[in-house]
């Protein structure tokens, strides 16, 4: 991947700079239509596909001209940098971005803001979070906390003897993975240690952490590895629903699929279907469509009145909400059932 990206990247950066010069003049005289950019991590993940759909729909309604860009794979910063440069050159009013690399993209974001563009981070906050004008995201810590609380309540008194496996995203510990993981622990009643990283907890109920890359293959392998460490595992936290599906296959292969509680985050349609089928116990559903449409509205407001979006009270970002989806509601944790979840699901 990298190999193919390096050369064209240089060339097109030079080209982008050139285009930028050429278009400054043009942008000034262009007609009044508002331009906006949506830059997602990839174009393949249904989460971003849904996000794009939401943005396009709202943009059409508000008469905003929306261009979409995406990295090739999760982590592809280079493409996102190029996309920002192109957007600056295009003279847009606002950029919505789900950053692949939350730190490395910051200088480019700053460049855009310096050019008078409203930059809103969607789904994934930048580091620092103040590097963007606003962040529209799921409260990932809350998402984890909900499934942690649910798992604890669902186990009842057995929660004290739980054997817990945590299937995380990546060894680099991106913030979204850490927040969900730590939120889960908080909800389950585990001492977090340093809440900015996973793996430093000392609770004996934790069997271990392994990474999944957020897909089925990784989920299965990680589950197998942890089962080899302790076959008595009975609670499995997963970073997302594909990883949960992989973990379920591993459990099924050793005949444990019926007596292990799997919880996850996302609320994608296959994930909700898996809850209905009993594969996953509960998931925290997030709303990418809302992130995108709210983002477009914010750009519209910025372009017409110069108003910047406000954060959710008590938080340093705009919380687009999260709901617990399960067919086994427990007391004290608000939830919706899978029929409602299906109506709201994405991808």
């Amino acid at each position, binding site marked *: 991947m990298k*190999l*193919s990206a390096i050369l064209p990247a240089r060339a097109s950066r030079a080209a982008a700079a050139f285009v930028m010069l050429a278009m400054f003049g043009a942008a000034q005289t262009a007609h009044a239509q508002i331009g906006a950019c949506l830059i997602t991590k990839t*174009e*393949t*993940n*249904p989460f971003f*596909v849904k996000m794009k759909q939401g943005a396009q729909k709202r943009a059409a309604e508000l008469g905003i001209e929306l261009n979409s860009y995406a990295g090739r*794979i999760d982590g592809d910063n280079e493409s996102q940098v190029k996309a920002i440069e192109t957007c600056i050159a295009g003279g847009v009013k606002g950029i919505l971005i789900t950053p692949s690399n939350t730190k490395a993209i910051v200088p480019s974001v700053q460049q855009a803001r310096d050019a008078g563009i409203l930059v809103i981070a969607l789904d994934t906050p930048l580091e620092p979070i103040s590097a963007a004008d606003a962040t529209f995201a799921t409260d990932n810590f809350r998402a984890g906390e909900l499934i942690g609380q649910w798992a604890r309540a669902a186990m009842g008194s057995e929660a004290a003897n739980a054997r817990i496996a945590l299937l995380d995203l990546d*060894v680099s510990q991106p913030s979204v993975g850490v927040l969900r993981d730590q939120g889960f622990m908080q909800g389950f009643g585990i001492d977090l240690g340093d809440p900015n990283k996973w793996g430093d907890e000392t609770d004996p109920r934790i069997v*271990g952490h*392994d*990474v999944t*890359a957020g*897909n*089925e*293959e990784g*989920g*299965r*392998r990680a589950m*197998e*590895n*942890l089962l*080899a*460490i302790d076959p008595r595992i009975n609670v499995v936290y997963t970073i997302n629903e*594909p990883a949960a*599906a*992989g973990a*379920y*296959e591993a459990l*099924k*292969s*050793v005949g444990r699929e019926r007596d292990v509680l799997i919880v996850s985050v996302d609320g994608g349609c*296959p994930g909700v*279907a*898996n809850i209905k*089928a009993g*594969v996953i116990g509960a998931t925290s559903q997030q709303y990418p469509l809302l992130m995108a449409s709210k983002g477009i509205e914010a750009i519209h407001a910025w372009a017409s009145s110069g108003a910047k979006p406000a954060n959710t009270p008590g938080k340093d970002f705009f919380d687009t909400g999260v709901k617990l989806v399960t067919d086994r509601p427990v007391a004290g944790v608000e939830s919706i059932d899978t029929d409602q979840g299906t109506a709201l699901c994405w*991808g």
Partner: protein
Amino acid sequence: MTDNPQSYRADGDGTGVGTGDGAGAGDGAGAGAGNTVAAAAVHAPAHEPPLWRVRHFFHRHPEAVPLFVLLCSLAGFGLALGGKFFSPFALTLILQQVAVVGIVGAAQTLVILTAGIDLSVGAVMVLSSVVMGQFTFRYGLPPAAAVACGFAVGALCGAVNGFLVARVRLPPFIVTLGMWQIVLATNFLYSANETIRSQDIAAQASLLQFFGGKAQLGGAVFTYGVIAMVALVAGLQYALTRTAWGRHVYAVGDDPQAAQLAGVSARRVLFSVYILAGLICALAGWVLIGRIGSVSPTAGQFANIESITAVVIGGVSLFGGRGSIAGMLFGALIVGVFSLGLRLLGADPQWTYLLIGLLIILAIAADQWIRALAR
């Protein structure tokens, strides 16, 4: 001249050209000299230092090095972890975890033996699995027909690679780099990144999950995917060492021009290798469905790198013509043993990558050392 009797006796035994010694009788000195030269050269190996013999042994048995490393790492983790690691469950788990990479690695080995490389293996695998799934669920084809279509897609991708490499004579690295992108993009465009759930497959098209089925022997679990991998490697080992086609694969990888001049159609051999690689990737795609239960277009992103890793650690020379498919399997198992062993030790997964990186470099160095003997 003391060697002459042996040489004459040899000539006398034969019925071919050698009996014509008389033709050169007028040139006695020449004949004697010739015999001495031929005789002197023979003894060379016997007089070489022991190191030469070690090299020569590895040279003739390219899978010996990775086998040795595999046994050492098994012993090492066994000592460190005891019964937790040396359980039938853990050991067969390693097999299950390397099954897909082992199968893709078999395809990769074939291509690398011809001095090529196939960067598209992972993408072809995933596209084949997606075709098997989507043809069943989107078009309602019987699962068996959908599986056949998946194999056809794999063969087609292989044929395109083979055509461009063998016929148009483009470098394999570039051809398969292009195919990788094309196939991956096709995969995402066609599938719309839609995952087909394990439960739906189990209910409606369990044939797709065939390779997830298993045979249990005590604590040991052998999935059909593992059995398929072992059977495939055994079959290819046979084909590569016991059939003319296999000899030709090695000869083409070693020196394509020499093979061509010797009467081997290098083009046909290359073409057959790429098609076979495509078919094997399709098999890997089927096994992948059995492994992860679902059909996921995002699976297998690293299969090409992992397969090349297995091939290199397995002692197959990237310069072609040397190595064995069994070595590749050992290479894949080494990676599997390290991954699971280090996890059981509780090490950060990064250590696995670090050690595998070291192994790759060591393997390449060993390959150079063994090849240096040739000159």
